[in-house]
């Protein structure tokens, strides 16, 4: 039933947290991660990567990400988001000068949007994922567009497709869809009249 490709790991529940990923702060990045030795690590409980611990030690508002992730991840509450991201950008130990990516995940079963900010540091070449969760029925989050210029447009994309509202955003408007579009398409409960559903059987009648 749940067959996977050959040589996949036999332990899908184990989060793939490899210290040797290229994004980690290893002094000399190595070619793509060597496969983990699943036998060794399966017994241990998942240990957050080094960078996560460092960040959590330096900035008290962060805590390690609870769910599985393949990249060093910290979790913050929405109120602390701007503070944490400012600290991460300005702290010389981390110096996350690039906001590589910002997007959202619709966790409809929890009633939440998970917003992820993927930071990239040009000095340590490490990557950090900052995750925060906001309620689906009141999706308001402060903007970080004053920290990174690109955040303005990344946030516009998330607003366009998820309907997340960014407080103090300089120019919050739709980016892909028309201004009068109803609904936010990447939400899991989005429906409109022109959506096709994959239903091949109906042709066979």
């Amino acid at each position, binding site marked *: 039933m749940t067959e996977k490709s050959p040589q996949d790991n036999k332990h899908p529940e184990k989060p793939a947290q490899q210290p040797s990923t290229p994004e980690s702060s290893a*002094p000399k990045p190595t070619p793509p991660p060597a496969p983990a030795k699943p036998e060794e690590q399966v017994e241990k409980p998942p240990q957050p990567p080094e960078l996560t611990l460092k960040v959590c030690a330096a900035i008290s508002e962060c805590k390690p990400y609870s769910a599985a992730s393949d990249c060093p991840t910290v979790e913050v509450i929405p109120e602390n988001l701007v503070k944490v991201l400012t600290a991460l950008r300005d702290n010389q130990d981390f110096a996350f000068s690039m906001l590589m990516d910002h997007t959202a995940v619709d966790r409809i079963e929890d009633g939440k949007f998970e917003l992820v900010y993927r930071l990239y540091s*040009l000095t*340590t*070449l490490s990557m950090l994922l900052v995750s925060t969760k906001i309620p689906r029925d009141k999706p308001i989050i402060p903007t970080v567009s004053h920290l990174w210029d690109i955040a303005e447009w990344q946030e516009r994309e998330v607003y366009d497709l998820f309907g997340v509202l960014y407080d103090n955003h300089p120019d919050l408007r739709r980016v892909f869809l028309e201004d009068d579009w109803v609904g936010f398409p990447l939400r899991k409960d989005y429906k409109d009249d022109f959506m*096709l559903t*994959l*239903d*091949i059987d*109906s*042709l066979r009648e």
Partner: protein
Amino acid sequence: MGYIDTKKSTKAKVTTVGNTPINVVIAPRSPSGADSESLLTTIFKSVKSLFVGMKVTIGYLVRPSTVVTQQYPENRETLKMFDRFRGQLRLIKDENNYMNCNGCNFCEIACPNGSIVITDQRNPVNEKLELERFLWRLDSCTFCNACLQACPHDALEWSDGFEAAVYDRRLLVYTLNDYAGPPVKAINRAKKKEDRVEELLATMEPRKQYGGPVPLAGRKMPGVPALETENTKDNASPKHK
């Protein structure tokens, strides 16, 4: 101001990003400061650069052998496509025109955009499922090759026909099988056992162009009626289930 000599000033050196040493080549700039050239040198180099560019273009004008134009409809006879060219999907047939496909639906499942719709029927003779109609929509096919990859029976191949233009998009829905009936494997097995071969072959029904509703990921295409042409009338819809 100043002319950039593209050949001269590129020099490799090592910088670091993070802790990684990186060999870089730095883009040339026009000489500045102490190295800066006199105005006359700049003008001379600039004017010379224009003539160098003109030399390149006249070089092509005087050598007609450099023309790369292919005169397409005229060279149709000699035009040879690469043997892996993804032109049009077709079913592999053997010398008796029996197909390999037994209608197992793997390609339909693998197809990312519902361009393949397969209907099966149960053969009255050997009670096995067999292909009734293999529909392929060229108009929504993205030529991703997923169907060929997924096919476990080696039943599909690409032909090199690339001239698929038609005037009515409904004509882009192809029936790939020539007949509805048992695949070559079933026929061979029957022949080996010498078991009701004639009867089995008699169940084959010819299939021509498809004339039914155009499938759109399982839906009927809104506003597009079924196509009625001369050669679709005889088998406009699947006969037995």
